[in-house]
């Protein structure tokens, strides 16, 4: 369903391409709303059940920009869904009902709905829903700036002790990180049940309060660890992904502070940290390599298993780059199977334009696997490990957030995006299907081949993410043309060639298979495109992890922001083990496939 009607790369600016999830048990309304939203040039996914909607949202973190839901639904109360979405994903939710009684509307607002529409709904009411997405983004940016203000203040006071702490933490327990992750997921589930509050009071985060917050976060971070935290930790001094708002709230022990307050603050904090990171890692090209299991549409689980960050000993040296102060140092982390890491992520070509650009390659060799994105259209191998974004359970910011900031960044520092993509030859391709690996992803990467590359070239094969909205079919066709094997084995840019058979997209693919840093550089280029086109709000995906997914960039054309030359050597080696926790992202990659399921 998502792909329908969006066969061409969207060049329009936001709000076109807004990803809307509609939930309504009434099939007649679902049909109508879908049609109306499509007419508004939005990308629509429909759901007849609240449970399905929640699953969809959880599986594809950052895959949607806004949710529209009916109040009355048989399996779950619309208000409850609203709460979950607000807390877990922090997405704007619009309620609708045929019942317009004041009390109901009031209830909707209390539960956090950003709007309440009365049925019958007219198209003009739907046209403007993008404002809620935009507004939220702006607020987040603002909050982040406030956070930054607080943080910098604190830093001057404490001499950035906090960040240093992160280092230590990172250095240590991989196993703990793993545990953290497990705990987190459990925690999150629990959180869902916990939240009953309907209010989201606006709390002023004073310096003291924020300090308490950070302290709690760090404390929790130290307590639990998990591998996935690693990734996330890359972006912050603690594995924020693992940290749950509830735990933080408990530790902070501040009266009248609600979990929602903490949750939203946490999100901003993560965003902030990731931005910090980006700034630090700016110069370190990081090869983002997306590694995934061969079968593309693997179940999430499979990805998870491969998630290990395979840091090669060499990587260790690269170790914690870039994170200033925070950042987990990934030392040979690889609790999980190494082989798994090598897998190339072959994601099904997703026509969705979004996703994207999370280009954060803060560390040159960061074993960050943050980049799951490959699947996304043009998702450049993100060096940036925004693991935080991976965090599925924590509310993720959507792509828009921080867009304004990032945009600036882009303009000023194209490098950001490119980390790791140094000198990617940017073919003027618009579509960077990165790894044009068609669905038959398995063909592409086989672990053995990966091992060849011990060099740690993370192979990023992003299955055709057709950039922005290109058709999946397009991707697949190209994918077939590509011979995956060569990609992998080629450590260097030779890979480019492989895909040359297909359109640029393939190129992108090859690019992705960077085996060497240098080659990776070129290859990474793909990542660029997405950046380039950063449309105004869309782009911003520099945000850790999740963000890129949301990039929603409609058309990310590479050229603009991305200047390959800017890329310095990007040791793409994210190496080997850098596999992100695709579990969260992968589903999105396969959006094409998955979407249809959801519809």
């Amino acid at each position, binding site marked *: 369903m998502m792909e329908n009607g969006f066969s061409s790369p969207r060049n329009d600016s936001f709000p076109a391409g807004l990803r809307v999830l509609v939930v309504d048990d*009434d099939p*007649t309304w679902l049909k109508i709303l879908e*049609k109306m939203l499509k*007419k508004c040039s939005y990308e629509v996914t429909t759901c007849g059940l609240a449970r399905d909607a929640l699953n969809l949202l959880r599986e594809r973190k950052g895959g949607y920009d806004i949710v529209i839901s009916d109040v009355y639904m048989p399996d779950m109360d619309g208000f409850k869904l609203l709460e979950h979405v607000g807390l877990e994903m922090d997405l704007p939710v619009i309620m609708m009902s045929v019942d317009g009684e004041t009390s109901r509307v009031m209830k909707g607002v209390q539960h956090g709905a950003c709007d309440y529409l009365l*049925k019958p709904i007219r198209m003009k009411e739907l046209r403007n829903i993008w404002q809620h997405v935009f507004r939220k983004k702006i607020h987040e940016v603002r909050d982040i700036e406030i956070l930054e203000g607080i943080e910098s203040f604190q830093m001057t006071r404490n001499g950035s002790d906090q960040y240093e702490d992160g280092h230590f933490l990172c250095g240590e327990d991989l196993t703990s990180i793993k545990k953290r992750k497990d705990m987190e997921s459990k925690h999150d589930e629990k959180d869902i049940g916990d939240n009953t509050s309907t209010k989201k009071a606006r709390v002023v985060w004073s310096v003291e309060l924020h300090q308490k917050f950070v302290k709690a976060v760090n404390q929790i971070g130290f307590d639990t660890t998990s591998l996935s935290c690693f990734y996330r930790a890359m972006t912050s001094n603690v594995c924020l992904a693992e940290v749950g708002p509830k735990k933080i709230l408990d530790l902070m022990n501040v009266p009248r502070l609600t979990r929602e307050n903490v949750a939203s603050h946490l999100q901003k904090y993560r965003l902030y940290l990731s931005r910090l990171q980006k700034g630090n890692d700016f110069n370190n090209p990081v090869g983002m390599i997306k590694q995934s299991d061969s079968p593309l549409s693997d179940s999430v689980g499979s990805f998870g298993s491969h998630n290990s960050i395979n840091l090669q000993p060499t990587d260790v040296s690269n170790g914690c780059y870039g994170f200033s102060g925070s950042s987990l140092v990934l030392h040979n982390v690889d609790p999980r199977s190494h082989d798994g890491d090598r897998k190339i992520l072959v994601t099904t070509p997703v026509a969705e334009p979004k996703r994207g650009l999370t280009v954060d390659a803060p560390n040159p060799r960061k074993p960050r696997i943050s980049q799951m994105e490959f699947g996304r259209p043009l998702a450049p191998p993100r060096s940036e490990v925004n693991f935080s974004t991976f965090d599925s359970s924590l509310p993720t910011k959507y792509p828009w957030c921080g867009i304004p900031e990032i945009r600036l960044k882009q303009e000023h520092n194209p490098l950001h995006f490119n980390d790791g993509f140094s000198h990617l030859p940017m073919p003027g391709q618009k579509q960077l299907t990165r790894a044009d690996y068609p669905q038959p992803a398995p063909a592409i990467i086989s672990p053995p081949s990966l091992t060849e590359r011990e060099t740690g070239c993370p192979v990023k094969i992003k299955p055709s993410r057709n950039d922005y909205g290109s058709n999946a079919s397009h991707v697949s066709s190209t994918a077939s043309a590509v011979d995956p094997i060569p990609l992998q084995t080629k450590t260097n840019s030779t890979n480019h060639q492989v895909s040359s058979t297909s359109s640029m997209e393939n190129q992108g693919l090859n690019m992705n298979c960077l085996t060497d840093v240098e080659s990776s550089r070129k290859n990474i280029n793909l990542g660029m495109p997405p950046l380039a086109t950063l449309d105004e709000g869309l782009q911003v995906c520099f945000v850790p992890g999740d963000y890129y997914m949301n990039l929603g960039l409609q058309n990310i054309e590479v050229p603009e922001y991305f200047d390959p030359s800017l890329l310095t050597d990007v040791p793409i080696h994210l190496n080997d083990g850098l596999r992100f926790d695709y579990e969260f992202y992968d589903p999105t990659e396969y959006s094409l496939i998955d979407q249809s399921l959801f519809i």
Partner: protein
Amino acid sequence: MDRKQLQHQLAYMRKSLFDQGYLDDQFNQLEDLQDEANPNFVEEVVTLFYSDSARFIQNIEQAMIKKPNIDFGKLDDYMHQFKGSSSSFGAKKVKKECSQFRECCSAGNIEGCIKTFQQLKQEHATLRRKLETYFQLVKQAGIAGRT
């Protein structure tokens, strides 16, 4: 009948449906949505509604014969859904009957409920017939939508 005549007939029928209160503006909204991708969008929606609403009617009937304890709350819920559904394409009279039914429910008026429900079913069926004719005419006239 030639095309022009058909079109006239169609326009007339359409107007009367509106004038007689069978349809409201939402119907227009749906017609506006029709395009090359979905030339028969309105018809599809109406068809979908009617197949779905059969379920509603059945549920309501079953709930209503559950004596002695009629679950008004449940009835109200069903009717709420039904109302929402019928509002989707502008079924004005049907919607009105739904509201009426709900009022009877909240008043605990069983008799009223039964009576209203009968009326509702009638309106529901009448509209269906009329729309079927309308859509046939639409096809005949070779236009999908408003004249």
